[in-house]
């Protein structure tokens, strides 16, 4: 299916993308739909982009649902381990 489901998150950070170049990652687009490369019918896809930049400046992830949940859990665990005064 084409799920059409698309969720956005504004971000402030950096990502390393095409040509080993860093760029400002200002937006995450998250959706569950057909992957381009991963060998699965559907994947949780994340595009980290600079919304003001070249479309090719993109870090793309295509993760199975299980992998995506594992990533979320790992992020939560890493954040949970940080002292509150550093979470600014």
């Amino acid at each position, binding site marked *: *299916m084409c799920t*059409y489901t698309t969720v956005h998150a504004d971000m402030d950070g950096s990502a390393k993308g095409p040509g080993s170049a860093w760029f400002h990652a200002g937006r995450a687009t998250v959706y569950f739909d057909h992957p381009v490369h991963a060998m699965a019918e559907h994947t949780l896809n994340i595009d980290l982009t600079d919304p003001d930049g070249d479309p090719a400046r993109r870090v793309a992830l295509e993760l199975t649902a299980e992998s995506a949940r594992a990533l979320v859990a790992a992020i939560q665990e890493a954040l949970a381990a940080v002292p509150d005064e550093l979470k600014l």
Partner: protein
Amino acid sequence: MYESMIATLVRIPGHAGDEIEAYVARPEAEFRRGGVVVIHHMPGWDRGSKEITRRFAELGYDAVCPNLYTREAPGASPDDAAAVARAQGGVPDERLIGDVAAAAAYLRALPTSNGKVGVIGYCSGGRQSVLAACNTDVDAAVDCYGAFVTGEVPTEFPLKITNLVDQLPNLRAPLLGLFGAEDRYPSPDQVDELERILTAEGKPFEFHRYEGAGHAFFANERPSYNVAAANDGWERIERFFGTHLGA
């Protein structure tokens, strides 16, 4: 079979006169023939979409596949362009209709044209094929597993699409529908609903549902590829376009 063909990139005036990219494949032979507009799927104007376009040339049609994401990301690779288009909310229906109409006009202006043009789309393009056939002058339309022709669009979907139920009375071309019985978007119930509506409206249509096939069974580079369904589907497309786009 027309194995000798010319495939090239062109720029055509699309909706509202915007210049858009298009991939064109034509038999390398002088005879009058129909045209086919190929509507690419949501992942973009990719290699698979261009392969399909060439296959129609091999079958004896002038075929064109417009890049529906030209405006969002000119010159970008298909997957990057698809990411940008998705992030910006997808292709508006009005623009899609204009781009397909422009592609059809391009085909009809070719010296080899017999004046007839069909449209075919896959996945999101399946819905867009029906949309185009309700709003533009085409002679035949093929919907390959397009979701939300019927059925309710979940309200949490940020892409602003609607179903096409209110537009189906305006369908102006015979419709071939090819669906996977295991698909959920469109579900078998949604295909049944479409069948009921077209029957009630007296619209000519031909539907085939493939047991064991899910969504995207034509996509031969994806795990969803289903050989039996795809092979039978191609034969039905050949016959359908042969019937409706012939001289």
